[in-house]
């Protein structure tokens, strides 16, 4: 009976080991200039984007994972709206240098020029969605890739921002250069993973759709 348990344990260990080996590890990107050119071409071809998102927040302190959902709209050059629908209602719209937040039925407006944190988040979110982080001077950037994805790892340079975010990872599809997910890590080890689903590009989005009432 005891030997059976040991054998079972060995089999489980082998399965786990083989699944780790089968992972597609990331290595340093081979041709960064080519990647930058293609990302730029992709960014130039996108004027609007609409998608659903799933946000997964890992709370290591509590050994819990929480998942929220919503949809996102983006319009060049600087409009983006995140609308959480489950399990809570919350809207954040970045609109021409202003941040509008609707929470509990109330709308608050923040100016990104006077609020450094909001400016940081504003720039980060827009860059992330565009995949246009290559020119962002607030981060130290490392380029990686595996067989299917490009991975851009960004570390904040400013100490004040490191209090909030220690690293941002952006995963980009190699075939179409679309951003498929982003991961924001904190110094505690917690992370927030946002996966973009049902992406639709270059549809008609009016400026009014980014207003919050």
């Amino acid at each position, binding site marked *: 009976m005891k030997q059976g348990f040991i054998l079972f344990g060995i089999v489980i260990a082998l399965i786990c080991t083989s699944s780790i080996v089968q992972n597609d590890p990331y290595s340093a990107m081979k041709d960064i200039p080519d990647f930058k050119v293609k990302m730029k071409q992709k960014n130039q071809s996108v004027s609007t984007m609409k998608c659903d998102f799933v946000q997964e927040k890992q*709370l290591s302190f*509590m050994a*819990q994972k929480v998942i929220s959902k919503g949809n996102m709209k983006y319009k060049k050059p600087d409009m983006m709206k995140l609308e959480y629908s489950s*399990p*809570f209602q919350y809207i954040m719209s970045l609109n021409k240098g202003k941040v509008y937040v609707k929470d*509990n039925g109330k709308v608050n407006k923040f100016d990104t020029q006077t609020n450094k944190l909001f400016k940081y988040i504003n720039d980060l979110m827009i860059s992330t969605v565009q995949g246009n982080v290559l020119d962002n001077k607030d981060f130290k950037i490392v380029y990686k890739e595996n067989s299917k994805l490009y991975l851009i790892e960004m570390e904040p340079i400013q100490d004040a921002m490191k209090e909030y975010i220690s690293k941002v990872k952006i995963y980009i599809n190699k075939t179409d250069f679309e951003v498929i997910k982003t991961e924001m890590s904190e110094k505690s080890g917690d992370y927030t993973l946002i996966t973009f689903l049902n992406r639709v590009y270059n549809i008609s989005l009016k400026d009014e759709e980014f207003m919050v009432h």
Partner: protein
Amino acid sequence: MKNSWFINICIAAIILLITSCVTKSVINSSEKETYNGHIKSPFFDKDSVCFFKASIYTYGKSLSGILAIKKQHTDTLKVSFFTEMGVKFFDVLIFHDSYLIVDCIPQLNSRVIMETLTEDIRWVVLWNLNDLSQPLQISSPKKELLVQYFYKGNWIIGKMSSNDFPDKITYAYGKKKIPKFDVTFNEYYDGIPRKIAVKHHKFDLRIHLSYISFAN
């Protein structure tokens, strides 16, 4: 003559101002009798973690996010507060009579702020019920079931519903039982209050909480 009339008006105004500034006791009635029931917490019965959408308002400023409260042991709460987008405000361990900050953004990392928030959180989930003693039922002109407890030199006054869950608790202090803060529990559904509000009396601090479930 004109001067004395003016002085009288001033004195009357000052008396009015002073009397209006006196903080009212939370209990006026002196009729009390022993209470045989016991205040109950509606939390952590089915699930060890409670999630709330939380908004904190103070002096014209506000902060919102998700408040996660986990019952780790009978004497420990793990509490995490983070923005809707996942950026953390703080992680804190709350015990029955102390707390330990694990991680906190600089803007909130002060003794006054964290002591206030942790005490509020204790009473939002009714964590310190075992420290309540001397339960007395107070006669209320509104026919409400009011129960007064002694709590670490202070007072907890509970406005009870019929099933021993509170509709409202007031943390009060001193001989006159001056209210420090209220916690109101509204919209009970499936045994859990869906809306909770904390309101402080000595300074402008209000916390609005909506119970949410991340299941599915």
